[in-house]
């Protein structure tokens, strides 16, 4: 793993007993001594601290950056209020998803958080697409931590009362000691929590401050994946990709109202013709659905899905045994006639057909703090 990047928390992870795996070019902790299942449960019941410093952080400044960014993403960015954060999709000309991202209106700038694996491609896309009109600043000198779970509010309140007053998808800059923190009330677990951008050289100090709390445990990528899957959240490169459209992915809500057919800023993003037609006609051939299995056997990515009459009708894109659900949970794409809740399908696992039921997502009750 010697040719992998390290995050600013690498030494702390080692000290905490992390097992590392290569992920998007980084050596990332997949689990700590607590183990994936207990890390998952601890995050749902108390509070988990995640290192997500591998993700890309980008600032866009200049003349009307919101209008410029709208040339590349589906969301309503012009209508995003200062201090608010919104989920958006970079799309490609054929209507596929290039990446998913978070966008914050920071007042005189936009602040973007993008996936680690897509970071370089996203930066290239921004530079070639709108780089002559606005300044694009890649923040390699900032780390990113996520504090997630029912105790996250209490822990944040002790550290920084003003940040603890944010509600879901709000963002603000605060100072703790001499650290300038950029805090969002959001995350990737389905729980209440915060995502905290911190200067790289102060990241370890912040992490240690948070870990001092008896309820905070370090959590690896293993539990991050089962937590986000139970929360019904997509993982780029698996549940959404270049060959899935936002409508097929069930992410029509990430297309801002102002960007839809007949609205004030209709289209204007790559693939808008394909995507907006699909959105209004709902004529996509397949769609992402949630699936719950019986028994205990996890149904993994790549498992083929069959109708009750034995026709191949889809494929699983993420799957695991959901520790909080207590059943196997999965997401996959199925032909449109099989998307109704309660439809029974079968997944082929090691030559056996295991039953699955098309189910509502999220699989758990989310606990986002809306005030």
């Amino acid at each position: 793993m010697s040719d992998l990047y390290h995050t600013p928390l690498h030494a702390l992870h080692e000290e905490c007993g992390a097992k590392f795996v290569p992920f998007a070019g980084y050596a990332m902790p997949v689990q700590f001594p607590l183990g994936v299942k207990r890390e998952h449960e601890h995050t749902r019941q108390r509070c988990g601290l995640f290192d997500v410093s591998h993700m890309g952080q980008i600032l866009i400044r200049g003349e009307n950056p919101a209008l410029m960014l709208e040339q590349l993403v589906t969301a309503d960015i012009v209508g995003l209020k200062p201090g608010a954060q919104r989920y958006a999709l970079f799309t490609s000309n054929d209507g596929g998803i290039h990446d998913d991202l978070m966008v914050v209106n920071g007042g005189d700038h936009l602040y973007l958080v993008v996936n680690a694996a897509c970071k370089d491609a996203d930066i290239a896309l921004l530079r070639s697409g709108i780089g002559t009109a606005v300044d694009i600043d890649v923040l390699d000198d900032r780390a990113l931590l996520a504090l997630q779970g029912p105790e996250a509010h209490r822990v944040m309140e002790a550290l920084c009362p003003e940040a603890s007053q944010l509600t879901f998808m709000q963002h603000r800059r605060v100072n703790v000691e001499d650290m300038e923190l950029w805090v969002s009330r959001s995350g990737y677990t389905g729980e209440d929590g915060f995502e905290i951008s911190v200067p790289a050289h102060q990241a370890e100090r912040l992490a240690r401050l948070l870990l001092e709390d008896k309820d905070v445990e370090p959590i690896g990528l293993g539990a991050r994946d089962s937590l986000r899957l139970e929360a019904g959240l997509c993982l780029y490169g698996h549940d959404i990709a270049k060959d899935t459209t936002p409508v097929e992915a069930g992410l029509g809500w990430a297309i801002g109202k102002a960007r839809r057919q007949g609205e004030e800023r209709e289209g204007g993003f790559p693939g808008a013709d394909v995507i907006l037609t699909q959105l209004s006609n709902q004529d996509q051939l397949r769609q992402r659905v949630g699936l719950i299995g019986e028994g205990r056997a996890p149904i993994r990515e790549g498992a083929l899905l069959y109708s009750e009459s034995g026709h191949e009708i889809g494929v699983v894109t993420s799957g695991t045994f959901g520790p909080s659900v207590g059943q196997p949970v999965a997401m996959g794409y199925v032909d449109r006639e099989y998307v109704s809740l309660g439809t029974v399908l079968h997944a082929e696992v090691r030559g056996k057909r295991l039953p699955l039921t098309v189910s509502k997502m999220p699989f758990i009750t989310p606990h986002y703090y809306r005030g």
Partner: protein
Amino acid sequence: MSNIPKTLRYTDSHEWIQDNGDGTVTIGITDHAQEALGDVVFVELPEVGRDIETGEEFGVIESVKAASDLYAPVSGEVIETNETLEETPESVNESPYDDAWLIKVRVADATDLEALLDAEAYAHLIEAEED
């Protein structure tokens, strides 16, 4: 350091084998294997009565991370499987040598047992893997 009981025999695919002295063996996975797998969430075992051959896949252990095949250390007939693992697969992590035995097999050819690793050889094997 993982636990490697001296009284058991081992395979290079991390199964342990206990000779019950009556022509049968009990088979499980080692402490080292359970630790490498991480939290076990599902164990798939063969039907009682099935004949298995040395080296053949006889089941699967799924952890939160991945699925891992189980390989038969000896040839013979499966005479019992550990049904408690259906409800408590996590006992593979907690008690790999006792509560979480996997299957019992009536051995077809006792000389199969001689080909298995002893505790010392297995300890060397996992040391070499870790290097």
